[in-house]
């Protein structure tokens, strides 16, 4: 089975989403990241491995420490992926806005003059 390694895979897991949120604020080493979660250190390590393979986190060595840094640019892929679907709905709802405006003014006319416009 081919293992998917892209931004969608990266953010599919809630812990990985939280890790991105953490390191987006400041670079952190593995221990500091692991302190924020109830799951084991090896599990966190595995999540970070997936995140690096998906290009959302990079590892910077500083002395004996390894710091995780966020690389947020690939997230734009996700937003772009959903945007046309959102726009498809948005266009329809804009048409619905116009219809509702028309219905409202028809109702007002009916109520005020007790006849159809």
């Amino acid at each position, binding site marked *: 089975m081919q293992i998917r390694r892209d931004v969608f895979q990266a953010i599919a897991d809630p812990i990985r989403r939280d890790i991105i949120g953490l390191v*987006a604020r400041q670079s952190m080493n593995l221990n500091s990241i692991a302190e924020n979660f109830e799951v084991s250190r090896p599990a966190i390590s595995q999540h970070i491995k997936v995140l690096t393979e998906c290009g959302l986190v990079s590892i910077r060595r500083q002395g004996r420490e390894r710091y995780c840094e966020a690389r947020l640019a690939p997230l734009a892929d996700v*937003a772009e992926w959903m945007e046309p679907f959102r726009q498809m709905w948005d266009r329809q709802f804009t048409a619905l806005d116009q219809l509702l405006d028309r219905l*409202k003014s028809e109702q007002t006319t009916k109520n005020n003059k007790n006849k159809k416009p």
Partner: protein
Amino acid sequence: MNKTTLQVEPGKQELFIYREFEAPRDLVFKAFTDPKLLAQWMNPCNMSLHIDQYESVDGGAYHFTHTDPMGGKHLFRGVMHEVNAPERLIRTFEYLNLPERGHVVLDILSLESLPGKRTRLTIQSIFRSIADRDGMVQAGMENGVTESHALLDELLAKLTARNMAIPAV
């Protein structure tokens, strides 16, 4: 103007569509359930719409056809599970042009009254698989046009969760 927002969380079989309208709830409900009104706005991507059947009652059936600018016909059908005016509509939804049958979606439309005679719509769509859901969103890409990155802001806001600013990349 009111903004249409999506909630499409990775790895889930559902998605949410949110929108507010400057109209009272009973009117919005009518626009979703009266086929004559529906025909006036349900028109994605320059398609023409023909509603063959639309029974807005519990257990009622619906069937409509979108014709794209190239003349291609797109068939949709489903069943109204619950038509509960003016607050809720539950229906199945299936795109019949798919290579195989059975990729049905469960749509739950909820309307909430807001102050000032406004209404909030929530559509929850539940799919049989993550692939089905992602395929539906992907189809928007093939039909539509890509602009705006506004949704990225929302995603990033959700990722940080604790209201902390993300440094520029």
